[in-house]
């Protein structure tokens, strides 16, 4: 064994989680090693070339607000943008973009290469080394040892990866990569429980063989929006996507070949995600649907490869080409890469604290798909938190735990470590109980103060943030101070900008509570400061929806009281007689850190919680 070097933090895997983790630790002054199987594939998007969407877009904004890189990279390298859910309520609006996969990777690689304290190395880590339940380093395939105070596992779907395309099965990571086969055993030897998950991806086809004239064009929309709060230039739409549908013939071919589907014949053991079903499982589960939609999405500007969104499959190669060719526009299509299913090991996230550190191994953190989540955005979100907390661990400072009412990141991590997951976990707006508070427009207001406190916000970000906060404050005060009384003059003034008459004395802030009244409109007739569009929007949203927002804030505050009652690490639930058996079991396994967290464990009843509160009160204070 050869001692190669010593680091503060080692990050295993340079995917979306690993990159954010490593950038965070390096930026926070920790000497960091970012180890990846292949430097060519850093920040790879092995699945769809798309970033954002409902809840996921909020995650990107939150990562950005904390000083992460994903939003900046997406703004720089994406080639089509759309704002989704525009008609459904401002809280669920989200930005989604098509990425140029190669450009995204190049951008991220160059950011990593130009970050101080960060070493980028192509290495296959095979072992983690622990001593007295504490991590001390890792060993590579080539028998080098790197010592570190903290290690972040961000191994994605590479752990024990197995690729399945119909009857062909081989060991490997996504996209023709190697798998990391030995690390799983090393983790198990350290007493870590693993689960086996599955996910899949569709074929990539040759753009030159697609007849786009038979498909519907999906253009981007020129949005005056970015993922990152520090991006200045507006995004530019440079590419389009195409929409088409399957038909009866497609379904017949799939049905005829179902016996060859790996998930039907028992080849796949892993649990797949419900929100990402393969086309063959869609046919089985929704037999009445006579067509399924699919999008042809460019993988980038400099390539002819198109991603067939909606057609995830692990059918044999001959079936893949046969069913694709039944689809309008794809009659002569050529496949460039086959769709496949991938099975992989991930850790049971119930073993983690809310900091993403393992409960039983000090200094070992885990983030991303190896925690049982899915998606680039979910990975990045965990990555930056694991990074921040690994740095806090190294420096012995306070960790960052985001509350559920503070961010989708808080919901994501709390769900994973409290409820666990039995399928790859995807962020959904429906998982957040306070989603009016967790809007994508206010991610900076919610989280950038953390970044500033920790030291992860660049001077540019700090400056922008402070300007915005000041603008909002000054303008809000002005809106509340300016009071108007009903009289002919005022009502005529209002009428000039299409605002209805007033009948009582009120601050002009109240006018914004009426539909259609904007800050800009009021500025035309009242003396108000000129502020940025984003600041004005913040003011409008918080006034117009104040009732609803107030209600959710109150609920969140109530919950917070329970979060504040902490449960000591060494509590022995078996000693608490009045807890029901199921509650004792669950609580012993998950070991929540607060009463609030305990309430979210399924199988723990309100009566159990009461018992727990009383019990905590009855143990003598140390």
């Amino acid at each position: 064994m050869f001692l190669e070097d010593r680091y503060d933090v080692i990050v295993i895997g340079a995917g979306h989680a690993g990159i954010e983790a490593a950038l965070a630790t390096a930026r926070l002054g920790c000497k960091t090693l970012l180890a990846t199987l292949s430097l060519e594939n850093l920040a790879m998007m092995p699945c769809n070339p798309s970033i954002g969407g409902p809840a996921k877009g909020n995650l990107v904004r939150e990562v950005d607000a904390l000083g992460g890189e994903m939003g900046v990279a997406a703004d720089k390298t994406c080639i089509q943008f759309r704002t989704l859910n525009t008609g459904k309520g401002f809280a669920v609006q989200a930005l989604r973009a098509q990425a140029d996969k190669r450009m995204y990777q190049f951008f991220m690689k160059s950011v990593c290469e130009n970050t101080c304290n960060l070493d980028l190395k192509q290495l296959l880590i095979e072992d983690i080394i622990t001593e007295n339940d504490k991590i001390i380093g890792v060993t590579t395939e080539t028998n080098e040892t790197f010592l570190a105070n903290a290690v972040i596992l961000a191994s994605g779907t590479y752990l024990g990866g197995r690729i399945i395309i119909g009857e062909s099965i081989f060991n490997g990571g996504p996209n023709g990569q190697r798998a990391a086969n030995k690390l799983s055993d090393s983790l198990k030897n350290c007493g870590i429980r693993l689960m086996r998950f599955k996910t899949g991806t569709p074929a990539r086809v040759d753009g030159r063989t697609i007849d786009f004239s038979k498909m519907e064009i999906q253009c981007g929309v020129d949005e005056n929006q970015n993922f990152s709060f520090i991006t200045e230039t507006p995004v530019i739409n440079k590419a389009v996507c195409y929409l088409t549908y399957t038909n009866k013939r497609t379904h017949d071919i799939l049905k005829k070949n179902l016996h060859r589907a790996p998930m039907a014949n028992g080849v796949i053991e892993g649990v797949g995600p419900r929100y990402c079903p393969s086309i063959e499982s869609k046919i089985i589960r929704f037999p009445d649907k006579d067509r399924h939609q699919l999008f042809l999405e460019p993988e980038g500007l400099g390539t002819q490869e198109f991603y067939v969104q909606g057609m995830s499959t692990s059918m044999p190669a001959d079936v893949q080409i046969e069913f694709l060719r039944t689809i309008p526009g794809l009659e002569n299509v050529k496949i460039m890469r086959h769709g496949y299913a991938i099975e992989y090991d991930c850790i049971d996230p119930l073993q983690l604290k809310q900091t993403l550190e393992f409960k039983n191994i000090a200094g070992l953190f885990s983030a991303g798909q190896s925690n049982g989540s899915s998606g680039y955005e979910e990975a990045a979100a965990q990555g930056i938190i694991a990074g921040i907390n690994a740095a806090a661990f190294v420096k012995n400072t306070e960790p960052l735990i985001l509350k559920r009412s503070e961010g989708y990141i808080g919901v994501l991590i709390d769900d994973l470590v409290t409820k666990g997951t039995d399928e790859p976990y995807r962020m959904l707006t429906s998982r957040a109980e306070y989603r009016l508070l967790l809007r994508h427009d206010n991610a900076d207001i919610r989280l950038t103060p953390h970044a500033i406190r920790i030291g992860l916000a660049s001077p540019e970000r700090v400056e922008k943030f402070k300007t915005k906060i000041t603008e909002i404050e000054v303008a809000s005060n002005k809106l509340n101070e300016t009071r108007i009384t009903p009289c002919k003059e005022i009502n005529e003034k209002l009428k000039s900008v299409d605002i209805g008459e007033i009948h009582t004395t009120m601050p002009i802030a109240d006018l914004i509570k009426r539909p259609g009244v904007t800050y800009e409109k009021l500025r035309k007739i009242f003396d108000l400061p000129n502020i940025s569009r984003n600041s004005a929007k913040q003011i409008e949203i918080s006034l117009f929806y104040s009732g609803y927002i107030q209600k959710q804030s109150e609920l969140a505050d109530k919950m917070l009281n329970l979060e504040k009652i902490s449960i000591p690490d060494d509590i022995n639930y078996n000693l608490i007689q009045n807890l029901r058996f199921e509650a004792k079991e669950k609580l012993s396994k998950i070991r929540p850190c607060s009463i609030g967290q305990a309430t979210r464990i399924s199988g723990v009843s309100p009566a159990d919680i009461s018992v727990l509160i009383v019990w905590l009160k009855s143990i003598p204070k140390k």
Partner: protein
Amino acid sequence: MKQGDTISAVATAFGTAGIGIIRMSGENSIAIADKVFTAMNNKSLMTAPDRSVIFGHVKDANGEIIDEAIVLIMRSPKSYTMENVVEIQCHGGVEALRAVLRRTFEAGARPAERGEFTKRAFLNGRLDLSQAQAVLDIIQAKTPTALKAAENQLLGKTSSQIKKIRREILKIVAHIEALIDFPEDDVEDIVINEIDKKIELQIEEAQEILNNQHRGKLLREGLKVAIIGKPNVGKSSLLNYLTQSERAIVTDIPGTTRDVIEEFIDFRGIPLKLIDMAGIRDTDNPIEKIGINRAVSYIEDADIIFALFDISRSFSDEDSRILDLIRNRQVLILLTKSDLPAKINTMRIKEYSKEEVIPISIKTDSGIDSIFKFISKKIEKDSLEMSFVGNERESIILSDSIKHMKEARDAIEHDLGLDFVSIDLRSALELFSKLTGESVDEDVIDEIFSKFCIGK
């Protein structure tokens, strides 16, 4: 640790003197009491001295008097729970007590959970450590079957209805959430008018439950006790005695009572509806005949029958007719006028009933205790109090959920966007789940994935 919210519950449902006490504990209990209660001297309770006793009235939201009451204020920390505690003593019987309890909920208190006053007392350091175990026992009390039955009166009868409403609302929420979380998937669009109608329908359903069944029938109406016996055995006398009134006319003429007299009483904590009626006999008098027919139908409807036999007269055909009527019924046999020399041969009666036969006299006050024992054996007093609170809690939850469903319709009307409709409906679901014990988050997500074909 101070608990933020204020809890309210019936402390003693029916005191010996016909007084029911409602107890509140929490930061705002005095403010809440101040909202529902108007003192005789019109002074605000907020400034009332600690431990003072104040006379006045509990009024409803419109200012109408619900009940005459006495309020006792115990300020933190000098109270049982060490929080601000207010006790409202009511005099108007069960209905008024319920109404006052409801008023406290309307004014911002929430129904107390089982053992919660004690729990708070403990958490606030009022009880010592050795009492912790006792508190834990209360919280996770093993419920006696009788209690359980009483508590679940609402759920037993209507849980399937509530579950149905919940399902319908869940379907709507899942559809909206599917559209929100998967806007680019092939999820069919929502026709907002249809959703609106569906919600309206569920509001009606919930309202129906609330109107008809939400109150434990037993408690709303009391335990129905039919007093039967041949003419002149002393039925009306017993009623008057128990109600401490001259409600029924008493004479020594057989056939005095012609109509049915119902009187609601609090019999040492047990709500009873006493029903006195015409003595049963063969008669040619058409009015008396109608009375007797009516009496028979009331007997069928009663929860308990007091069958009276006159100790001072011999057993007659009319008495055997009574025995026929009470066959297979929950019955208490009373031998009246036990102060007079006994002439009756009780053989026939004892043959008929295995239960003990209780001699009573209202002239000498004897036997009344035995009646009480008999009834409390039949109905556990505790179970009544629990179901009283339990049902009230449930009806509050139900009416709150209706409020949220109405808010969802408002959101539709004001075109706020689907998100808000969903948020309001989820609040309603959250409440239904309190009644049915299901979890919302997982259910919505399960429903999304089982109903809609979603995915890349």
